[in-house]
């Protein structure tokens, strides 16, 4: 009999926590991130509605958040977390910093995806008399959707990475399992299982993202 502290209840609970954090943070992070990315593209010089002040503030925000390691961000925003979800610990306590981490990341990726769309498409849209909103909804977003999916895939994997540190505020998850059982209690089996699980999750996300992007690109 192999000696391990890992039980299937423990494993499934951790997996559930990870997927929960991943799903919720990705959901809110994507909404915020896509809006952020669009806003950056719209307000940049030469954009649809250029605005130097808004552009500076948004870029500043993205750069500041992106320059903080997640573990620092996690503790730095504790008061804000408490304000938003009423607690700064547990799975819900981790959601706020996770969302806050991933939104600017997605914002930057969305910006890159949108800027990849040839300038001429925007010109064609304008020549048809498209409104700024139509330029985004009917030209830029559809043309960028393949690369947007790839961007979200990358962001999701980055988010999974960050959930491992959520154990710091007692949020649990696969990463926490690896640290508290695998590492701190010298349980090699738990370590192995968590590593394999993380690898499998990342592979699945990447596979799904790549397939979907290819289907959406139509080239």
């Amino acid at each position, binding site marked *: 009999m192999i000696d391990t502290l890992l039980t299937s209840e423990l494993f499934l609970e951790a997996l559930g926590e990870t997927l929960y954090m991943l799903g919720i943070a990705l959901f809110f992070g994507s909404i915020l991130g896509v809006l952020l990315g669009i806003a950056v593209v719209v307000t940049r010089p030469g954009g649809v509605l250029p605005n130097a002040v808004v552009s500076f503030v948004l870029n500043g925000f993205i750069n500041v958040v992106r320059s903080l390691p997640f573990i620092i961000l996690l503790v730095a925003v504790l008061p804000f977390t408490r304000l938003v979800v009423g607690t700064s610990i547990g799975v819900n306590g981790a959601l706020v910093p996770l969302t806050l981490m991933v939104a600017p990341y997605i914002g930057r990726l969305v910006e890159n995806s949108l800027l990849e769309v*040839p300038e*001429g*498409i925007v*010109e*064609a849209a*304008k*020549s*048809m*008399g*498209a*409104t700024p909103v*139509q330029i985004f909804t*009917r*030209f830029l977003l*559809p*043309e960028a*959707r*393949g690369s947007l999916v790839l961007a979200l895939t990358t962001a999701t994997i980055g988010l999974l990475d960050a959930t491992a540190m959520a154990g710091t505020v007692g949020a649990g998850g696969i990463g926490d399992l690896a640290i508290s059982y695998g590492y701190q209690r010298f349980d090699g089996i738990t370590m192995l299982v968590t590593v394999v699980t993380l690898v499998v999750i990342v592979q699945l996300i990447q596979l799904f993202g790549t397939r979907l992007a290819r289907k*959406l*690109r*139509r*080239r």
Partner: protein
Amino acid sequence: MVSAPDGGGVGAPPSTSSIAVRLDGVTRRFGRGDRTLTALDDVSLAVRRGDVFGVIGHSGAGKSTLIRMVNALETPTEGSVHVDGVDLASLSTSELRAARKHTAMIFQQFQLLETVTVLDNVAMPLRLDGIRTREARARATEALEFVGLGTRLSAYPGQLSGGQKQRVGIARAIVRNPAVLLCDEATSALDPSTTLQIIELLKRVNREYGTTILVVTHEMDVIKDLCHSVAVMEGGRIVEQGAVMDVFVHPQTPVAQAFVGSVIPHELPARVRAAVGGQPLWRLRFLDEEVTTPIVGALISEFRLGVNILHADMTDIQDRTVGHMIVQVDGDDAQRAAAFAYLSERIVSVEEVVL
């Protein structure tokens, strides 16, 4: 045919209603301070309704900036742009968007949506107007049938050839039945035979829908095969303007002569030029039935002159024929003078040149 509003002051200016596009003293400068670039320099032109008007120039001559003035993708630093009698500078942003629906544009790189079918690409302008999918697609289908792509409705642009992509571009442009069609180097990415097909299609659009077409290009063949009127641009200015036939027969400026020469060779090869260098030669130009007149025979038999043909060619320009000949004429001066007068009466132009 069409002259610049300030062109010579001959005759009354055309009435506004017959003019689809009018540029008056348009100047466009980019940058500021001492790094200013003047893309357009006091450009005036008038495109009559129903005309096919070509603007030719080398890259950097300002023609892309010029065509973008007409749908206000560019705005003049000085001067004014009128489309259908309306000064674009007087329009609000939303009025400008509405005005753009009457000036469709096609592009060198087609600018189709890669992620959307051919049918939905063409339906797009109608969808922007809030027309329902079903009706928009029905009208898009008609436009695609007109351009000969009625069987490729559900294809994606990535599955089409360059010529087919430009047909989609044209279908998308005509689906709203615009008053003016702007063609920005629309054939420059295509091979010669595909270029001819696209030109034929544009002529059909002009003929069947009465659409005014403004073309910018660096290819004189496009001007020759498609346009009725032409403006030649160099360094941001229009240096020559007139009916295509006139510019082909009497190019005034070196740049226009070079463009005409790209279609109709009018220079002697270097070795021939060296052999006859310094001698006066005659340059003869023929139009239509003049090309079948036995001119050279008359010079020899009636005027007893020795005629040596150094260069001769004929080109069809739309429904007309232009002939061009360079000859060396030997004989006594009185006979030469008489022959010169004889030619002046019978062909469109004769001039003595030293090449």
